[in-house]
């Protein structure tokens, strides 16, 4: 078939062109930051690359904004590229390309910490400073983990905020996302222990996993409310399930009977915080986390002192602490967003 061969050829050409073009644009995009001079001296700027779990969602875009801001203020080059789905393999390809480019510092928020570990080793062998941010890869060669908030802090704040709404007692359920997401599971562990120890009249009746699918989270929350008629609380454990569970309560007309809290970005949660479908959203200063990641990158590249948190010039970051034993740089306590302050954030 002549036609089909010609079309296949055309398709192949188009595909090849697309790959080449995609390669070009990503280089152009990323090369656009730090124009200002490098105070660190030397003829080349420090390049700090960050690979998020997923590009294009408000959370990581806000981190990117913070990182870019730090790049302008501190004078380094900030590179940002992530996969369009939360896919470990696609993320690995991007990490490899940064290793190829020979960046100075590589930050990753791994989708799968275990499969990322050997790649981080590879990067270190290539002379790159490797670190994690947002999500840790504990069994890897990473030199540093920039932590948004302590596991304890988040788990307890989620529980406290929900209990405040529920009156310190009652049955609640958790709608989590990825079943293997290490940070979510660590928070859930704290919530279970903390609820058992500090709120003896409260009980977690079920933990379900909706993936990163908001509609599935809503449906599961509705199913949970139906199967547990005396359920009075729901926790959305990630930024897609937090508005998802709030939507479930709103659509079932149960506002004021079932209370929700979750880890949601302020803009997505604002309508639910205002209607009362969500009592509070627990998160942290995401742009601040991006800024701190950039700062830590410069310190790593120059073999600077990470404990020197006094040198942080960002006024919003006042509670940063460094734990040398675990090599963790902690942003501070989590932020509680309510109807009053959620509108102040543009992510």
């Amino acid at each position, binding site marked *: 078939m002549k036609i089909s061969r010609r079309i296949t050829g055309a398709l192949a050409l188009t595909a090849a062109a697309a790959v080449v073009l995609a390669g070009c644009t990503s280089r152009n995009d990323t090369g656009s930051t730090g124009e200002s001079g490098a105070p660190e001296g030397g003829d080349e700027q420090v390049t700090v690359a960050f690979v998020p779990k997923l590009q294009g969602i408000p959370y990581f875009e806000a981190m990117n904004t913070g990182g870019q801001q730090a790049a302008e203020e501190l004078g380094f080059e900030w590179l940002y590229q992530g996969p369009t789905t939360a896919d470990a393999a696609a993320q690995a390809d991007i990490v490899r390309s940064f290793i190829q480019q020979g960046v100075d510092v590589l930050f990753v928020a791994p989708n799968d910490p275990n499969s990322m570990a050997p790649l981080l080793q590879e990067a270190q062998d290539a002379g790159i400073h490797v670190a994690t941010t947002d999500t840790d890869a504990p069994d890897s060669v990473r030199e540093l983990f920039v932590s948004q908030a302590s596991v304890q802090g988040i788990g307890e704040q989620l529980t406290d905020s929900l209990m405040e709404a529920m009156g310190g007692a009652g049955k609640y359920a958790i709608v989590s996302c990825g079943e293997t997401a290490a940070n979510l599971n660590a928070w859930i562990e704290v919530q279970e222990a903390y609820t058992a120890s500090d709120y003896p009249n409260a009980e977690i009746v079920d933990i379900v996993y909706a993936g990163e699918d908001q509609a599935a989270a809503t449906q599961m929350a*509705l199913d949970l409310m139906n*199967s547990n008629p005396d359920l009075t609380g729901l926790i959305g454990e990630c930024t897609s399930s937090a508005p998802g569970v709030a939507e479930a309560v709103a659509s079932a007309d149960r506002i004021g009977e079932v209370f929700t809290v979750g880890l949601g970005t302020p803009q997505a949660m604002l309508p639910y915080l205002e209607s009362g479908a969500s009592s509070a959203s627990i998160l942290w200063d995401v742009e601040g986390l991006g800024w701190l990641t950039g700062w830590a990158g410069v310190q790593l590249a120059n073999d600077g002192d990470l404990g020197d948190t006094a040198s942080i010039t960002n006024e919003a970051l006042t509670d940063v602490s460094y734990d040398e034993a675990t090599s963790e740089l902690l942003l501070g306590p989590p932020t509680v967003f309510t109807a009053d302050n959620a509108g102040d954030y543009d992510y």
Partner: protein
Amino acid sequence: MSVDTAPERAPEPAAAPQVSLRRILPPVVTGQEIVLLVVVVVLWVLLGIFTPAFLTTGSIGPLLVQVAPIALVGVGMTFVIITAGIDVSVAAMIMVSAVVTARMMVGLDIPAPLAVLVAIAIGLALGMINGLLIAYGRVHPIIITFGTANVFQWLGLRVFDSSTVNGIPGTLDFLGRGDPGRTLGVPHSFAIAVVAVAVAWWFLRYAKAGRSLYAIGGNQNAARLAGIKVQPRLVWVYAVTGALAGLAACMMIATGTSTLDQSVGSGKELQVIAAVVIGGTSIIGGRGSVVGTLLGAILVQTVVSGVTQLGWPTQLGFLFVGIFIVIAVGTDLIRERARRRA
């Protein structure tokens, strides 16, 4: 595969008189549909007994709302699979339709009818691209739609422009989960899906153009020789699937939060294909029913919701849906073999 051993595959489309047409039509409901219906009813009764509130409007209502977009796109997908094709780009078409419509709802505050029209028009246009490439490119549909899925994905991400669409107004709430989305307890979105299924059922059974889809799926060359205009039919089939994906996108906007992110539609292609296959439509083409697809979609969501309501681990939902797919495909292949031997 000879034509006369499988009567429902290739009826004489050209000159069959009404009487003989009726004689060669398959029964109004087929075995697989009855089995599915029984399975769904049994599951609903069991869940009604073993959970506190499965059989209440507060539980069945949202379940049917969740089923509606899957069943609706499933109608198009059933057409496609009957013609021995497949469309793996429906999720991407939903995403493009949803993001463009949502952006217009936020930016221009367009009224509901216009929003629905825009979404359907976008889906139709994208589906038309699929259809033209498949009908005239003569490359296997899975390759074409896999390719276009990625292109559509890129298009959608460009429109998203690395952010979410915030502050979506409640214009489409009549398709949603809440009170405005129901009349006498029946969700509008589900009613739309049922109407689509009914029209498609009539079309596949009694309209000449509908019967010709079976012929195309049974043997494309034979269909062409029998005088069926294969290419225009194929273009039409993929275009309809796209249009239905556009309408489904409206339902997704309505059931979502006021924020739309790039995950919208993701994974829907597999859910839709699962519903079609469980519904008894043969993946090799030439046989299938939209009623089965509707029941398949209800069955899948029943299993997923049931697992949650029983308090079982979420993963079991995947196991059960997987088993259903394997059983459905298995029985289809066994029947196919029996038919060939006969």
